[in-house]
């Protein structure tokens, strides 16, 4: 995907130049990324055979099917090779990706945050698979920003910071704090997984959802009769494995997806106003911030610069843009959130993922007057920034009595910021706990039930 400007890459002692992913695959290197690269309308085995044919191997569908069945059983994630990919859960898709990489003859498996967002139970299944792969003579490079994950599965840990190599350590010889120091230097002290101060919600309901039914992309209900309330000064965290209707729920609230049945109401002028199917513009005009899933796709425009990404929102600029004013605003956010960027007029695509995320979070927090709807708001942020973002959100909740609906696939995050924890599974809110009463074990059980 990228060709080095300088430096060399050696595989098995031979210097190589990769000009395309295919080059790398030829040398036995396969990458599984965070976002599944599968064709939705084809079945699992078809997806895999597509890849095999490109390398001129005999594509025997029966063999592929058997292999998938065996492996998936061993790992403990059931998949039927003849189902279309769109029906699969995120976990299943990632498994298919891994199996494909192995079938392509990978000797070196690179997992780029590929399993970071899976719940710990699911993750462990993958660990088993990786161990087996390594014992058969393969190598695994696991890229993650979660230190416990690295400590649990890796033999050696290498740390990169801002593109620079910091060092490599034997896992047995280090503790979580050592790695943290390597990653963040003196800032490592700022990282905490402790629960942030709990806020006591007001009586005032900001978001009220009653019996909500929302259709998914493929004609089946994804949200089935959800009922919830978010009050001012409350963070409602929705925990769940990806693909259990959280996305559709959030999109329905934001007016991005049609509601089939039910009612969504948002506080406006002292009373609750029905915004069901009234469009995103209406919802946004009530002072709602939104951090969408896949923020690089739905949150910011990569081709445009930071100023333009701010001025784009009706809440920030109307009609003729006063660029001077926007620049001041942009610079304020940049310094407040520590965004690393040459200037406020740098195209967003030149920033790192974490910095783009910061821009987005900063923007949405700045316009959220009543409610912030967030989906994985700290995804792709390093731990320090993630904790910082969570703190800022929480601070706003405490001080400005903002209501937050937080949907996250990262249980750590849920537990750190939520005042109320709801668990979503198969389109339903299965249980709601006050934060202090929520048990991690119980929540995890409800998630995969």
């Amino acid at each position, binding site marked *: 995907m990228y*060709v080095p400007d300088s430096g060399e890459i050696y595989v098995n002692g031979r210097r190589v*130049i990769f000009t395309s992913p295919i080059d790398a695959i030829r040398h036995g290197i396969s990458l599984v990324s965070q976002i599944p690269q599968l064709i939705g309308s084809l079945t699992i085995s078809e997806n895999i055979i597509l890849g095999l044919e490109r390398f001129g191997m005999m594509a025997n569908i029966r063999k592929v099917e058997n292999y998938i069945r065996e492996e998936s059983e061993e790992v403990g994630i059931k998949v039927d090779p003849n189902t279309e990919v769109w029906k699969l859960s995120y976990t299943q898709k990632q498994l298919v990706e891994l199996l494909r990489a192995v079938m392509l003859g990978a000797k070196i498996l690179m997992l780029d945050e590929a399993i970071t967002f899976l719940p710990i139970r699911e993750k462990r299944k993958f660990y088993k698979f990786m161990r087996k792969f390594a014992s058969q003579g393969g190598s695994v490079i696991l890229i993650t920003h979660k230190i416990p994950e690295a400590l649990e599965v890796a033999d050696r840990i290498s740390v990169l910071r801002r593109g620079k190599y910091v060092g490599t350590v034997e896992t047995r010889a280090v503790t979580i704090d050592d790695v943290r120091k390597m990653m963040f230097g003196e800032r490592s002290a700022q990282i905490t997984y402790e629960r942030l101060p709990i806020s006591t919600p007001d009586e005032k309901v900001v978001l009220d959802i009653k019996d909500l039914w929302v259709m998914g992309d493929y004609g089946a209900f994804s949200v089935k009769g959800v009922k919830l309330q978010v009050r001012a000064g409350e963070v409602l965290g929705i925990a769940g494995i990806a693909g259990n209707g959280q996305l559709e729920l959030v999109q329905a609230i934001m007016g991005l997806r049609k509601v089939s049945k039910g009612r969504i109401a948002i506080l406006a002028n002292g009373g609750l106003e029905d915004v069901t199917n009234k469009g995103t513009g209406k919802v946004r005009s009530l002072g709602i911030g939104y951090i969408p899933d896949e923020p690089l796709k739905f949150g910011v425009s990569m081709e445009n610069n930071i100023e333009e990404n701010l001025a784009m929102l009706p809440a920030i600029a109307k*009609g003729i843009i006063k660029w001077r004013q926007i620049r001041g605003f942009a610079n304020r956010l940049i310094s407040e959130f520590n965004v690393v960027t040459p200037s406020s007029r740098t195209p967003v695509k030149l920033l790192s993922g974490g910095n783009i995320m910061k821009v987005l979070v900063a923007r949405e927090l700045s316009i959220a007057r009543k409610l912030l709807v967030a989906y994985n708001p700290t995804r792709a942020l390093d731990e320090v920034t993630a904790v910082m973002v969570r703190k800022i959100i929480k601070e706003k909740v405490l001080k400005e009595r903002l209501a937050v609906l937080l949907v996250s696939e990262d249980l750590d995050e849920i537990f750190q910021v939520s005042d109320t924890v709801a668990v979503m599974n198969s389109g339903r809110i299965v249980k709601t706990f006050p934060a202090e009463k929520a048990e991690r074990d119980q929540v995890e059980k409800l998630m995969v039930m």
Partner: protein
Amino acid sequence: MRLIVTKRVKPLKFGGIIIPFLSIIVGIFLATIALYGLARVPPLLVYGAIGQSLISPQMLQTFVMLTILGVALIIPFNAAVWNIGAEGQIIWGMIMSAFIGLTVAVRYIIVSPSDLPKYTNMPGMFVLPTPTVSGAYAVEALSMNPGAAICLMLIVAGIAGAVWALIAGLMRAYLDIDEVATTLIMNYIAYYAYNYIVYGPLQGITISTSGFGLSNALHPALRFSRISTATTATWEGVALMIAIFVIAWFVLRQTTFGLRLRILGSNPQVLRAAGINVRKYIVLALTISGAIAGLVGTILFAGNLYQLIKIKTITTPPTHNIGYTAILVSWLSMLDIRGVPIAAYIVASLFQAGINLQSSLGGVSGGSAMISSGALTYVLIGFVLTTFTVLRVFAEYSIKVVREGR
């Protein structure tokens, strides 16, 4: 040794200026070689013709129209809405300008041949050159202030172009029908509608226009005034060009509307998440584009043709396909509005160079038909565009040679 091609993350500095420039120079050079190879066209003649065309006032009118149309197209193109229908929108602009100019703004006085002398010298009267079928003469008399009439022509033409584009815009926004296909098809519908109207409602009333597929001629007071005899460009056209360019620049760069249009081009989902009605923007982008293209219809009708002439062959409409050429202009400008006049200047000069070259060749060779000299223009333009494409690849990708091995 391997050749490695990678996409540049940061665009080449000054690429937007250097690339078009280089492509003209290299393209022209290659074209002369090709022309010499194909038809023994003396290279000096080619350079002469091009040099002359760069400063020739005759290309001004094409420049004006291409700039306006380039701006018209760049607005939706920035939003990734592909308006291929400028042709049809121009045609409707022409038709509606003609409707205003030939029916609303004037009334016809039928006079017997014996009364004719009275009218020939009367101010504000325009005698149509041949008699009507009945043998009497027709005189066009202004029924409104000519300035107001010209404004009305422009307004109605703009509305006509906008409505024509609006149809495609609504289909794209609400029915998800690809606007490339609809706008293109609607060009042909416009051509046929034009021919129907030339033979129908706007058919000339004199004996020698009615059967020939001609409308009446526009009253001289309603015609745009040429800057000089040497060019067909008009003061009105130039003024429109400047006004449209400045307004469009302001809207695209200094308003939320323009900003969102540009974002719409790369990422409509972001706009949706921001609570912006993307459909409205798609429709508006096409409508504005159509309105500006419609104005070009007036420039063409009131500034150059003064008359609707039937379309003889569907490939040679009265617009001489300038609506398609404008696509090329907006592409050459790399979708940056500041590049539009530059690109328009290049393309207009190349067209002019074709005419200059042809007339030089016609004189020198005494007419030996070695090469269809009409093709010369296209050889020139083709080479410039090809080099442009190649150079753009260089600008967007870095290419280097790397050694492989132990």
